[in-house]
């Protein structure tokens, strides 16, 4: 089943800037799908449209069977989001931040405790958000995105700015999320991350999707050991064309 379905999606900012130029892809229920691409490719724009923060200019967008933007009210209730570089309320504690989002999503009170437990945040519950390390800030962001028990999660560059250790922690959290049966659409410009986590990838460049594949298929196609090498080879072949 397609939990996200995007067809020929265009986004033009201020009638001038073509950020997305007709992209088509979908996310299967239960999988981790990565949108991979350099800065400025259009990843955040895609996530913002899917999470109903900004409107598509043209094209068909369906999230959990609901049309975007017409049925955005339904989408917002059901989808969790971790925006790029998200900071919580900086002077609220970990617990207060999570509680705010649980309430917004009409979650049960007990969920606050559960989320703190499952994300190893219990000992930081009284710590203000601003005083957390980068890795723990991400943990809180993920906890907040799980408020209200979403079946689908959008994560925009979830490991940017983290040290290698924390990046791996976040990777583990993302696979945990998948194990809970939550579908994940993540964006990244780190190829090791995409290789490690993704069931399928979409490579986005200049507002266009240049390849839809799995990490394995792409590495095979270009006979490379890592996704990074395969990606570079792909980019080279595109430059030649």
């Amino acid at each position: 089943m397609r939990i996200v379905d995007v067809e020929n999606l265009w986004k033009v900012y201020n009638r001038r800037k073509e950020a997305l130029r007709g992209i088509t892809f979908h996310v299967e229920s239960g999988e981790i799908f990565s949108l991979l691409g350099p800065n400025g490719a259009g990843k955040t724009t895609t996530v913002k449209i899917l999470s109903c923060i900004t409107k598509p200019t043209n094209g068909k967008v369906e999230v959990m069977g609901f049309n975007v933007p017409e049925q955005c009210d339904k989408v917002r209730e059901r989808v969790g989001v971790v925006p790029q570089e998200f900071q919580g309320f900086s002077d609220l504690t970990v617990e207060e931040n999570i509680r705010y989002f649980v309430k917004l999503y009409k979650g049960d009170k007990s969920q606050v405790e559960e989320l703190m437990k499952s994300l190893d945040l219990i000992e930081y519950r009284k710590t203000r958000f601003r005083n957390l390390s980068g890795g723990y800030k991400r943990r809180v962001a993920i906890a907040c995105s799980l408020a209200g028990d979403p079946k689908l999660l959008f994560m925009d560059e979830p490991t940017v700015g983290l040290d290698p250790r924390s990046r791996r922690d976040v990777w583990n959290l993302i696979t945990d999320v998948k194990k809970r049966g939550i579908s994940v659409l993540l964006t990244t410009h780190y190829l090791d991350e995409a290789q490690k986590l993704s069931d399928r990838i979409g490579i986005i460049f200049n507002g266009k999707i240049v390849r839809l594949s799995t990490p394995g298929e792409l590495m095979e196609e270009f006979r490379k050991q890592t996704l990074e090498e395969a990606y570079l080879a792909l980019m080279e072949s595109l430059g030649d064309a």
Partner: protein
Amino acid sequence: MRNALITAWAIIKDNLSSKTTLFFVIFFPLFLTLIFALGFGAAAEPHVMVMVNGNPSLASYLNGTQLFTGIVGSDEREALLHNYVYVSVNGSKVDIVYPQQDNYLVPSLEAIIQNYLSGVNTVSFHVSSQQGFTYYDYVISGMIGVISLSNGVFGVTGVAAGYYRDRLVDRIAASPLRSYEWVMGLIVYEIVITLISTVPILLLGLAFGFLPLISVSFVAFLAISTLMFAGLGAVIFGLSPKDKLFVAQTAANVLVFPLMFLSNAFFNLSAFPPLLKPIVAYQPLSVINDVIRDLVVYNVLPSLFDVGYIAILTVAFVYVGGRLMKLRETD
């Protein structure tokens, strides 16, 4: 509505836990009040000012007496608020209203007026005393309006800008929270902050001998004026580009400081040059201060015009601000 309140609660808790906010909410207004109260309050004391109504040349005559300084004016309450003696001349009838503490000066004043009006056969004096108001009463009540202005405008623009920078707005925009609930959350926060900042100012006022008349109508009006300025803040923020947030904050500064100083908050309308007077008199902060002074200082019913004027501005700013300050991108 429920979401607006839980959002307001989060914003209140977040900001009141921050030292920077506490500085701006508590210490900055106190500091400003102290500067004006001590700087101008002390200087205002030794003058014995007489406001003359109905006979401008008597005012200049008084000026020549060394004892009094005469000015022309017709607002008895203004006069008393500044500890002026108020003299109203109508033919041979002279009304004198003076602040209690100036009791000992009244005989000299009567003699001087009698002398000046010597052409008139019998001058009949009607003398009454009023509880005097001091410059402290004036500046402290004026400061309350200033707080609603600065909290309302800076609060919305500053807090919203911070949350944009922290991507909190993006996060909240993806949640079921509605745009108007977000704006309401911010406005409720501003109202709470204003009420909180007012307490230390009033306590400081007590130290200067100002006994404010705290009433339900005062608290309600203070909430409305903050609502009005928060709506104005939302208009400014809504019109500013979100990728250049400093524009909103610059615009807020450019607006707030002139409104603050070109108002009757610290100085009486009569102290402004004639060209500025209409602006000073009818800009919202002055009208708000008129109402606040009526309520907490004079204990009289505020004018219907003043209250209606503020009510209309409040509805207009909140409506336009709520439409402009969208939680989500619209194009």
